[in-house]
């Protein structure tokens, strides 16, 4: 390890609970107005509804939920690709919800994103060198030693051959492309990276390699991560804290131990059941979720999970549960939280 990497790693380990959060999200909401047909009645997709969480410097937060739960929408609001309908995003103490112009450009250097699709995320007409240099170029940054040297450094950092900077994306495999996307995200030396399902499009054998790369970068560079995934298997070894989303809402937030060993929300438990290497599952055994996520245009009343919850009672469809601290130490939104251990 270089001493630079060492010092970075040591900053990353000084995680103390009382630190100022790097990123703070309060009441974040995104509604998409949609119209069915040309003259159809306008309705609203409630993609993200009143989401709150924090990310400390050097921390990795997992954002987990099934497809359509609003994870991507949340991630895009964090990197300011989407304008929130309401709520507040604070980064390093500054309200960045509606930052514009030059300040936004500066801010973008601190918060970068890695995309899910390794094919759509790289411009097919640009060489790898140009793709990785793009963030430097658009910000007019001339790194010491020149852009080419910096690009080759970055390629090496993500485990690619630095001599390949003249090649085109179609000459690389999915995993290699994802590494190129990671190199691009690192170019501006961000403090926070939003990784939107960075491995779900990859072969299982390659997924681990890419997750390991991200882990190593996180340690070496002291990066903070919001790591989006649709199951609990991928984030298990990567995230210190995990937030579970369902239908645009946060249903449980807790540490890795709380979520994996002692989940309080039935939905978390159901997601956990899908993880192959979780064997013992306490009282209810393996839980299989029936049906699909309901439409966010017309979400169920009360607890939005009640249409699929095996513990649902009358109260559940009448009254929305609040996100409150529960017995296992996490916070969960459920009238009848679980308490038994899982493993």
């Amino acid at each position: 390890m270089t001493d630079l990497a060492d010092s970075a790693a040591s900053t990353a380990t000084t995680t103390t609970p009382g630190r100022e959060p790097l990123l703070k999200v309060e009441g974040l909401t995104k509604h998409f107005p949609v119209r069915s047909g040309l003259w159809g009645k306008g309705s609203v997709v409630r993609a993200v509804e009143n989401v709150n969480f924090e990310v400390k410097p050097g921390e990795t937060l997992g954002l987990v939920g099934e497809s359509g739960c609003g994870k991507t929408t949340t991630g895009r609001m964090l990197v300011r690709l989407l304008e929130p309908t309401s709520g507040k995003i604070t980064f390093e103490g500054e309200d960045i919800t509606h930052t514009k112009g030059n300040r936004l450009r500066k801010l973008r250097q601190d918060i970068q994103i890695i995309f899910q699709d390794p094919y759509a995320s790289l411009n097919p007409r640009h060489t790898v060198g140009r793709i990785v240099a793009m963030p430097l170029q658009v910000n007019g940054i001339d790194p010491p030693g020149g852009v080419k040297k910096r690009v080759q450094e970055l390629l090496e950092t993500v485990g690619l051959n630095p001599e390949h900077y003249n090649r085109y994306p179609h000459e690389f495999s999915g995993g290699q492309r994802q590494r190129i996307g990671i190199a691009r995200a690192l170019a501006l030396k961000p403090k926070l990276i939003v990784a939107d399902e960075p491995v779900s499009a990859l072969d299982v054998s390659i997924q681990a390699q890419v997750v390991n790369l991200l882990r190593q970068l996180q340690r070496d560079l002291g990066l903070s991560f919001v790591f989006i995934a649709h199951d609990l298997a991928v984030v298990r070894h990567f995230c210190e804290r995990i937030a579970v989303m369902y239908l645009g809402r946060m249903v449980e937030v807790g540490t890795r131990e709380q979520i994996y060993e002692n989940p309080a929300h039935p939905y978390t438990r159901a997601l956990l059941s899908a993880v192959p290497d979780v064997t013992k599952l306490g009282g209810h055994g393996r839980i299989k979720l029936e049906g699909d996520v309901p439409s966010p245009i017309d979400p169920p009343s009360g607890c939005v999970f009640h249409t699929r919850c095996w513990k649902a009672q009358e109260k559940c469809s009448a009254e929305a549960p609040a996100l409150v601290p529960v017995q296992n130490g996490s916070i969960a939104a459920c009238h009848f939280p679980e308490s038994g251990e899982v493993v």
Partner: protein
Amino acid sequence: MSNTPATADSRSPGTEDTAVAVLQPETAAKAFVGRSPGELAWIRLKRDRTAFGSFITVVLFIVVALASPLISKLYGVTPTAGNAGLLNSEGLPIGYLGGISADHWLGLEAGSGRDLFMQLIFGLRTSLIIAFSAAIISISTGVVIGIISGYFGGWVDQALTWFTDFALAFPFLVFALAIIPIINTASYDVGEEVPGSFRIGVIIGVFALFGWMTTARLVRGQILSLREREYVEAARAAGASSAHILFKQLLPNIWAPILVAFSLALPGFIAAEAALSFLNIGVVEPTPDLGRLVYYGRQWLGTPDWAYFLIPASAVFIVVLAFNLLGDSLRDALDPKSSK
């Protein structure tokens, strides 16, 4: 916090399993040589025989058209010189096959006695000048309108889309038949001689006015689908300006369909120009013109010299066909589906 990237050393044997991943990047792409999508298209194009044949034909026509003044000099005959001495009292060429001779390879035009070969290659030049100018103007207009429409969306897009549909609904030929004489009479008095270049300009203008819509639609559709791509989002997330996104990220991905649209617009304009001339609202005398040659050639149809109709007519046909085939081959070669 230090954001210095891990350098090569971070790949040295670490205590972590992570080092393994970093030391073994997937090596699947070893066999490739760095080739851009454009180079790949070029390789496909070279393998295509139709493309090759039509390309040679098109190049030949363009070279002949461009070199027509030079050819005229070497040949020793100008396109407009009347050879009255070689016509009989009825104005028909003396000799066989409409006066074919060592001096006049394709014979003479009845009535005027002009050299047909020269008329043909100068006429080709006129056709190509009109077609290329009209294609350049109309395709650029279409690209600009399509980009604005697709990239900015909203009411701008709605207005431009409406305008495009409106222009598409206009019957081109009827409009041309109506407007060209009107422009003429408005600009020049009766009896005043209309310069050839003015008419050419009017024709190019009318073509440009009616030629941009399909390109605008095409480009709008492309931009609409590309602007949501994640590489565009990545540029936006890095702080890129709209100009960067348009010119550096989007345009390089749509030049292929633009090129195809351009190459397919050319034969369309050549044929349309010939049609206008045939209807006698095209290029005026003394500018040589292919369509008008066909028009004049008609009078030979019933005679043994019907070749004078056939030659300019086949010239138009071959030019249009060659350009069309070339455009089609280009489209196949540049097709994004085959570039994977």
